[in-house]
């Protein structure tokens, strides 16, 4: 039995908003990274669901690319958070404020 695509869209919108909420409220850089992952995975849910809806594979293939890129992005991000910790002795995003925003 196929689930209606609308439900997937609602799910992905909810996941996306959860991620966005996390980004706006959390000051811990690692939680920020997790929130970005949520947002990217919301896009993946959409892509796979629409891929099934349209019966073509484009969306699924793109979802694979997105996953690989998300992993690469986290690798670079954790590297930056590591040097952040070495310089500021914390992973609080708001601590790194020697220049003004």
């Amino acid at each position, binding site marked *: 039995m196929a689930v209606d*695509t609308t439900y997937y*869209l609602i799910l*992905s919108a909810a996941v*996306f908003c959860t*991620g966005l909420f996390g*980004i706006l409220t959390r000051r811990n*850089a690692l939680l*920020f*990274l997790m929130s*970005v992952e949520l*947002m*990217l995975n*919301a*896009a*993946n849910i*959409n*892509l796979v*669901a*629409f891929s099934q*809806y*349209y019966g*073509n594979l*484009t*969306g699924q*293939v*793109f979802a694979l*690319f*997105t996953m690989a*890129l998300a992993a*690469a*992005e986290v690798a*670079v*991000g954790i*590297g*930056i*958070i590591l*040097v*952040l910790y*070495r*310089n*500021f002795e914390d992973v609080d*995003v708001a601590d*790194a*404020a*020697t*220049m003004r*925003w």
Partner: protein
Amino acid sequence: MADTTWLTLAPAFLLGLTGLLVLYVDSIGHSTKGPIAVLSLLGSLGVAGVAIALPDVLGLGPAGWSFVSVTLLAMFALALFVEPGSQNRRLIAGLSTAGAVGALGVAAAFLFTFDGEPVNPFGDALVVDGMSLFFAVIVASVTAMVTVASYNYIAEHSYQAEYYALVLLAATGMTLMASANSLVTVFVALELASLPSYALVAFLKENKGSVEAGLKYFLVGALSSAVFAYGVSLVYGATGSLQLTAVQNAVTGEFTGMLGMGVVMVVGGIAFKTASVPFHFWAPEAYEGAPAPISAFLSSASKAAGFVIAFRVFTEAFLQVSESAGEFLVLGADWVLVFQILAVVTMTLGNLAAVTQDKVKRMLAYSSVGHAGYVLMSLAALSGGGATATAKIEAGQFVLAGGMMHLFVYGFMNTGAFLFIALAEYWDVGRTFEDFTGLGRQAPVASVAMTVFMFSLAGLPPFGGFLSKYLLFGATVNSGFVWLAAVAIVNSAVSLYYYSKLVKALWFDERPDDKKPLEISSRPTGLYAAVIFAAVVTTAMYGVFGPVSDAAVEAAAALL
């Protein structure tokens, strides 16, 4: 007959392969080179043998096989120059510059022999046309200037090979952004350009400013790429395809809300890459904290690459030309209106913020935001220009070409300006306008070059910036957007204030007593060469502006 269309991507391949070669040189620098040299020789001979015996294996064809074996042979030859146990600074910097200059040469040669027929390597996912070659030229020239300047700038740092490799890989991504013809390749190329850039901004990892800049750039970048990806997924949901023209053809009356959301989110991703409102606030931080050559690289090449995506995605996927009604149909959201607002807000915010800065690098960073606003006009003014479809198309091509030309000139004048800052950082001059006082007497040649960049950025004749602004603003007026051009002109007038403030500091202001006297003991060759080259091109733009802008107009003609 083997498919050789992928050879048209040679500029991107050259940049990427050079990046990998740099890492290879570094890795054999750390080991004993004998075994690796022998292995690469055997490998290249083996590949050449396969190429002669069975040209069609893997579908590469003779051209592909000779490309692979020449690369491997070059790796063998390189191994002979590597000195074990050293950084091989000269070799690595030389190799990177050679790669960038090679890519520039190939891209320029392709551009001027281009017959107007777009080539689609790897299916429809990529396209090589006038615009992609034009932007490959911009990216490769900026890369070449940056690698030359970095030779002095990062002389004292470790991890040099990684630095150059990241610059070259980011440049590969930017060149591919210019060729991306599907939302998938747009996203992948965007990330290929972004990920090395994050690391490069934080390259001075013991410098708090650099790490902070890298963090902020990364956070905003990750957020905007997630927004972009979600936007792409919505566009896919509304149309069922990701290839740009297929998206345009698949747009129906259904799902307009979803498509509209998707388009707005795609605008967000592009705003980040071009440092435009609302994703601009990383730019002053990242440009101020990053090593100055990287600020030059990001504010010129990365911005240009962001705009090429904007030009292609919005004209190919989200715009239909209706011959009968004599107008452009804007698909999804009314993005032309969005770009009008963004253009005005971006240029005004950038210029007003630049006025209030007392640090030179930060002033340049805000001026870079302002220039993004000028170039946004070429998308904002698309819907105007005459009553018939033909008139509209002509006006649209003109205004797009204006934006491209401004990015081209900007690639030289802005890179040069940031490289002058790199020179000042190399001398440890300081960061504020006051610190720069009296530099004109101490370093007259570099200061003359900086004066050229400042006046050119402000748009004064007789420099390149005047011509490109004239073309862009004129084209905007031609499209019927007099008010938009008026805002841009007022902004240019404001910008003249802070640009000339720096010129005044360099040449006329007395050095305050509490500042230590300038001590300039060295003349770094690489930095000087890059700055002077940029100044010469900015000044000589009068000679080459005609043919280059013809190429830009042709490139724009392929879009509309």
